[in-house]
């Protein structure tokens, strides 16, 4: 059984600072999104259960992936496909799905494709659905419990009003929610060994795409601006002893018309 996990590196969200409403990304390290790690963890669990499975991690990103890819390989992926060609830079969601689809088709064999339910930075959820459409695969999203057995996938997904138990024949694509598992922390020795695992690096021409069809040259969505929202808050810290603070707070809230209506 061939399992493919698609992952993306994102800037460490806790380390992004805002300067004049603009995000400062210099010196912010790239990390794997939490949901992407949940996807890898689930693939490893499937492999542990089935025994006979191969996990390929496919990642689109910058040259920093060369180092970063050790983590999913150490978690349990057997090999990696890195899509680090500069032509891919600036891909939007539809562009990412296109490149991932071509790479997965080039791998040839795939029974189960696993992604996070959204990227941890933008949470748009577009890539997985577009990828399922491109590969003409059944799709189960927001999965919190997964079972793979007898050529079938059975999954429980969490919707607004209910849990749905869904079933599909393989090959299929699933996206996982954060509550599905606790991603393992790879051990030091596993990270050292991960460097020896096979990795492929494919550019546009390996995927049968021209540079005009990928990355920033093929945007379907244009970003007009991307700024921190303006904050217009009073920033009043209540002074005095506890009872003065409480009185001050209650008076203020009554004046604001949000209490005692």
């Amino acid at each position, binding site marked *: 059984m061939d399992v493919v996990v698609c992952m993306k590196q994102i800037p460490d*969200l806790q380390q*992004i600072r805002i300067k004049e409403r603009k*995000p400062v990304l210099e010196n912010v390290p790239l990390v794997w999104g939490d949901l992407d790690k949940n996807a890898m963890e689930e693939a490893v669990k499937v492999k542990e259960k089935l025994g006979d499975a191969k996990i390929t991690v496919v990642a689109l990103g910058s040259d920093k992936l060369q180092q970063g890819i050790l983590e999913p390989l150490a978690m349990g992926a057997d090999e990696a496909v890195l899509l680090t060609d500069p032509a891919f830079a600036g891909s939007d*969601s*539809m562009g990412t*799905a296109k490149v991932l689809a071509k790479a997965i088709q080039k791998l040839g064999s795939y029974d189960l494709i696993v992604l996070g339910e959204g990227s941890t930075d*933008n*949470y*748009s*959820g*577009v*890539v*997985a*659905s577009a*990828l*399922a*459409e491109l590969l003409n695969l*059944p*799709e*189960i*999203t*927001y999965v919190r419990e997964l079972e793979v057995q007898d050529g079938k996938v*059975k999954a429980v997904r969490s919707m*607004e*009003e*209910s*849990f*749905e*138990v*869904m*079933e*599909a*024949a393989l090959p*299929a694509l699933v996206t996982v929610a954060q*509550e599905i598992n606790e991603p393992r922390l790879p051990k030091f020795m596993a990270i050292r060994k991960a460097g020896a695992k096979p990795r492929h690096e494919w550019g546009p021409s390996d995927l049968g795409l021209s540079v005009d069809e990928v990355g920033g040259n093929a*945007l*379907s*969505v*244009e*970003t*007009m*601006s*991307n700024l*921190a*929202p303006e*904050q217009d*808050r*009073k*920033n009043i*810290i*209540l002074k005095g002893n*506890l*009872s003065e*603070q*409480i009185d001050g*707070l*209650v008076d203020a*809230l009554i004046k*604001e*018309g949000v209490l005692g209506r």
Partner: protein
Amino acid sequence: MSEILVYSDSDGTALELVSAAKQFAKELGATVSAALLGAGAATKAEKYFSLGADKVYVSEHPALSDFYVGTYAEALKQVAERGDVEFVLLGSTKRGKELAGRVAQKLNAGAITDANGVRVRDGNLEADRYSYGGNTVASQVVATPKKVISVMPKTFELGPQEAKQGEVVIVDLALPDAPVKVVERREKAGDQVNLEEAELLICVGRGVQAKEDLAMIEELARHLGAEIGCTKTPASDWQWFSEERMVGLSGKKCKPSLYISIGISGQIQHTVGIVDSKIIVTVNKDEKAPIFNITDYGIVGDYATVVPALNEKLKSM
């Protein structure tokens, strides 16, 4: 004339989008249509007309009786290709969000999901969505001939209803059987709270260390008539609360008139869910906590003494 096509699995959200689309259509010189899909769809037409739809496409095809994303995406594609649809506006519910990528791929379109603001700009629709985990808001336009945008519920209010006639188009769709079956549906029983509607909201964060302390916070909620929500940790790690009460990027987006944070540091993943509150109150013992930057009235102190004192005061009023 170009057409704005609205669809959501939640009729409430779809009607909000029809109301908004009516205004967009005026500015764009477009018309508004809606897709009504699944069993009983035809009976909804009047309501959609009354809020501004010029036309509804109706299909009660048996393959639409259970929602499967691929089938619904194919239905919307076939509807969109019949008319002169330029914009597909979807509700950004969970089903709407998974639809967006599929529909966009089928229409060779770009997609923006989770928009929390949409406006007309230079003959196109510009949408706002959170980016970098909520640190920024990106304003984006779709640059393809057809455009897919999914819009968060409650982004727009329902417009006034008017007596209005519209055109009902019964569409004959060619839909395959779904390759994914729903074998069981378990209702989420118990916690039926709707924090998105709450007028007063108290949220609990990691700073609240002991579960027993929830009692004083529940008392405060009773005095105020407030609902209680939380950040990610108390819900998903400690299981003190159901997911329905998780507020933030991966939870609920709330717009209360009063929001009180207790023991919340102010990570962006939570605060995106409450930035639209009218008044923000913070109780936190760490005066450097980032939550104070977006606070109107703050008390630097231990919630375990502040909350009981506040309860006493409210009791005496």
